[in-house]
């Protein structure tokens, strides 16, 4: 009963967001505020809201994706429904707060409430060790970034004498203050959007329910970082150093994440790394510092929301039906195309999603990625180093993306023609597993509640590419297509031979996680022990010693109290004389 009420409320709220976006579409930018307090003489705090084109775009994305997720969850989530739905709704509300806020602190509220909702939702299956650890890691890493974000707000807010977003960027500010402030904001963005070096939490957040992953990866949380930079673009554009840092971070991240995705052996982990990589492409677009770059990044954000949401929902069906999203399990169901036939809708929609991700011409991802490349080329033409770096990185990433998309598609849905189905291509592949054929007949596509959102998003993954008006630079389109083809062919030929070579360094994801463990977590543990020991053995010892000294002294004084009047008198006289001498010495 409560669960149903929450579900109705959740879907209703998401639809309300869509409705709000529809009503606000085309309306002139407006601002309003609520409450307010003056702190000291310098700072005015209040809740300010705004609406403009960016807000409407984000509201539409958030509303549609969260509606899809809420509807899908009705069929997907079986336990603890009330708390789950409530948290997803709160999550959506927090993202809406971020999108409509015109005040840095209000934005921070939404920003961190999203963090905590993701913590609670990733830990939805708190019986599982990996879910517990992943949730905690996600929250702590984003929180670390958020402290930087808070300091960035201080620096910019004090610099501009306002915390109002629409007033930032106007008025004089010292260049180095601007640089420091924007870099600190960037730290928060890097944490939230899982860019290098705070990237490790996102792949570890995969034990959460699949619809939640779709929500986090497609429309909220990680997209908030891109949104923030787009929102404060006029401030960031002024700070060239910050944009260069952003470009470097983005380019390193897209290659890093794409290479990790090429070696991951679990559908959701591949998708997680691909999100990191795709977000980096958006940041690369933003880092160009041009209007075209921003537009391309937002276009990429829009299409990515559709196809990445779709892919996670598809992965959810696989998890739901097969019970695992690991390649090694899924490939057992590929004999005679069983999984393709039984999960027809899933197969078709996932193919569309992967095609869009890989940048197959005609699908949404193709157009948006090309627009980033195009914007980078415009910059590179003028001899901009950042432009060249972005251009080359995005092109290389295109090939890598195509590689891991094709690899995943083939291994999950098709049986390799190699000898004996190439059993042993994956770790933990039991040579005997091929003999006891899993019962593929039990596989069923999900209920229509789960399929309808997938179909809707699949339509988006094709159609959204044409919303920005088709303006194609033929040369660039040709180059990226060829690169994608090369990547895809490489994956195909490997799969055809039944091989899946995974360099150790990629499988370990460059060893970043163990390094962080050794560098930060372990020392903090030592320090904690030190702090407790210090309290117990050092400070505590002084307290105990004082107590003991008191006891000893009282015993000593008891001995003095002999009852002998002469002793008292003598002591009094000696004391008086001593005091008199002392007073004389001090007084002179």
């Amino acid at each position, binding site marked *: 009963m409560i669960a149903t009420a929450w579900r109705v409320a959740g879907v209703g709220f998401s639809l309300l967001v869509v409705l709000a976006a529809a009503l606000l579409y085309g309306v002139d930018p407006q601002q309003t505020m609520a*409450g*307010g*307090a*003056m*702190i*000291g*003489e*310098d*700072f*005015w*705090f*209040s809740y300010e809201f705004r609406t403009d084109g960016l807000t409407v775009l984000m509201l539409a994305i958030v509303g549609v994706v969260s509606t899809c997720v809420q509807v899908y969850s009705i069929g997907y989530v079986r336990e603890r429904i009330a*708390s789950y739905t409530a948290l997803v709704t709160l999550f959506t509300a927090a993202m809406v707060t971020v999108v409509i806020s015109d005040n840095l*602190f209000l934005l*921070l*509220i939404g*920003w*961190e*409430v999203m963090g*905590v909702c993701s*913590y*609670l939702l990733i*830990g939805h299956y*708190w*019986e599982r060790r990996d879910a*517990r650890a992943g949730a*905690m890691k996600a*929250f*702590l890493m984003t*929180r*670390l970034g958020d*402290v930087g974000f*808070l*300091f960035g707000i*201080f*620096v910019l807010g*004090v610099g501009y004498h306002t915390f109002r977003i629409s007033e930032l960027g106007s008025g004089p500010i010292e260049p180095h203050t601007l640089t420091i402030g924007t870099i600190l904001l960037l730290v928060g963005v890097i944490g939230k959007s899982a860019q290098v070096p705070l990237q490790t939490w996102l792949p570890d957040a995969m034990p959460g329910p699949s619809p939640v992953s779709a929500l986090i990866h497609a429309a909220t949380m990680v997209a908030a970082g891109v949104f923030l930079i787009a929102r404060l673009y006029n401030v960031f554009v002024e700070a060239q150093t910050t944009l260069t840092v952003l470009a470097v971070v983005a380019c390193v991240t897209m290659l890093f994440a794409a290479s990790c995705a090429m070696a991951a052996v679990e559908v959701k982990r591949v998708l997680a790394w691909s999100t990191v990589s795709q977000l980096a492409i958006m940041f690369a677009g933003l880092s160009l510092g041009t209007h075209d770059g921003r537009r391309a990044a937002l276009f990429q954000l829009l299409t990515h929301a559709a196809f990445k949401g779709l892919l996670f929902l598809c992965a959810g069906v696989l998890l739901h039906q097969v019970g695992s999203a690991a390649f090694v399990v899924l490939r057992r169901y590929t004999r005679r195309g069983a999984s393709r036939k039984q999960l027809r809708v899933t197969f078709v929609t996932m193919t569309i999603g992967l095609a869009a991700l890989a940048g197959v011409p005609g699908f949404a991802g193709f157009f948006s990625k090309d627009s980033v490349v195009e914007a980078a080329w415009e910059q590179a033409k003028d001899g901009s180093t950042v432009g060249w770096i972005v251009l080359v990185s995005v092109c290389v990433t295109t090939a890598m993306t195509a590689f891991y998309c094709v690899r995943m598609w083939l291994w999950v849905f098709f049986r390799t023609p190699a000898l004996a189905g190439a059993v042993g291509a994956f770790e933990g592949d039991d040579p005997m597993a091929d003999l006891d054929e899993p019962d593929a007949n039990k596989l069923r596509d999900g209920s229509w509640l789960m399929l309808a959102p997938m179909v809707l998003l699949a339509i988006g993954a094709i159609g959204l590419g044409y919303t920005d008006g088709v303006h194609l630079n033929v040369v660039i389109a040709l180059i990226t297509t060829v690169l994608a083809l090369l990547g895809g062919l490489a994956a195909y030929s490997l799969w055809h031979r039944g091989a899946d070579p995974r360099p150790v360094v990629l499988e370990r994801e460059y060893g970043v996680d163990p390094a962080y463990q050794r560098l930060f977590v372990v020392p*903090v*543990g030592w*320090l*904690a*022990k*030190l*702090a*407790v020991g*210090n*309290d117990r053995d050092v*400070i*505590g010892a002084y*307290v105990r010693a004082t*107590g003991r000294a008191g006891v000893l002294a009282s015993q000593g004084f008891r001995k003095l109290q002999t009852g002998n009047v002469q002793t008292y008198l003598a002591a009094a006289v000696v004391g008086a004389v001593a005091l008199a001498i002392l007073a004389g010495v001090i007084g002179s």
Partner: protein
Amino acid sequence: MSEWLLIALIAVPTLTAVVLWALPVVTGDRIAALVGTIVSGVLLVVSFVLWWDMRRPHCPCTYQLVDTYGSPPRTVPGKLMPDVDINVPWIPSLGVRFHLAVDTISLPLIALTALLVLLCCVYSLKITPRIGRTRSLIALLLVIETGVIGTFAAADLVLFFVFFEIVLIPMWLVIDIWGDDHDRAGRRRAATTFILMTVLGSALMLLGFLLIHRHAGTFDLVFLGQHPIKGGHGVPLAAAILIAVGLAVKMPLWPLHIWLPDAHAKAPTVGSVLLAGVLLKLGSYGMIRILLPVLPDATATIAPYLAGFSVVAIIAGSLACLAQTDVKRLIAYSSVGHMGFIGLGIATMSPEGLNGALYANLAHGIITGLLFFLAGAIKDRHDTSDLRAIGRALYARLPRISGLLTYACLASLGLPGLAGFWGEMLVLLGAYHPADWLPRATFIVLMVIAGLGAVLTAAYFLRLIRELCQGDPAENPPAAFAVDLSRIEFVTFAPLVVLTVFLGLWPFTLLNQWTFL
């Protein structure tokens, strides 16, 4: 009218306590909690009436003034601006007057005290320590209420000291008699450490007061606020150091916090709630009320050191939390970290930092009160507060209580949107933008370290949730008689939960109180 209400706030709890003690034991035990609930409920209403009355005459036009006249120099807040004023001679030969006054700094704290005592009494309607003797417990809680409200309302240094001391003995008894019933020696040691350290601290504080009197010739806070003692060295400095150390014991600041974990861990639930929720605030309130306005120059001299110790408290407290294995001890240590934030805010001497400290005071009282109530609920159900003995997967065994615990932990780690955030945020903002006469670089470094402390805070609370609430239910079967949230607990916790959200989402009502400082 208001004067009588203020007198009632201070006198009624003690009179009720006397009446309770006058009753026969059996009757007293039966009706004590009820009487306490009614009386403290009335007091809560009275404090709100006073507050409401005070808000009326002030127009909210301060910030418009600023716009018109440009920004005036930043002033040091904390000065007593008495609204309700009671001033009669008390000990004429020493120049001590019975001077009570409240303003917008003290009234919210008085209301918080009344609220927490009310909740403790409501809680005691059904749930009391095993040892019984409810009559005396309630009576002592009411005496504590008198002392605390008196301290918040005192406008005379000696009166402040007297009320400050009144609180100690009842609290000592509460810990010693109703404390942890498994560890008799431990609770006695905790109680003794508590009282000895605090008495030592207040003795130092009294010395400081005497120095002020010697220098200024009066104990009157209103007068001293209008004519602060100039000079940042010599006698004023000595007075400031003595008072700061004395209050730092109470607050407590590292390394004078050593009494706190034991006292909180061994005290009964209601004792812990009052200790953390209200008693610690006496220290921070004293700093804001006495150090800043009376000894501004001397405080400026010691402010960087105060800030330094506060930041060490944040880090050391958080690190110690990471290594705790006892729920109540962990929450107690978390108070060290949070009070460190408040100390940092006071040390910045800026309006932002002060506002943050005042806000964090209230937020900490509410949130930590809730945390201790929840820890008490968990302890009652398992007869231990040791994490390993309780086991894991509390989400499966006590879903409501552990859900609330998660909520309280999130509030306590300073999640934006809940009460803990604004205080911490304003304190950090104050550290970024400290008073003009303080070394800014030092404070920015301290701000960064405190920010890392906030991450550590998140780390230990998440660890608590992971070790206690989450886990495999199969390995931790539910206890046979574990009941989830009972009705009385619901009634007790609900106001705190609601206030946490309200203060988190709507800080403006409170912050506007302190604008005209």
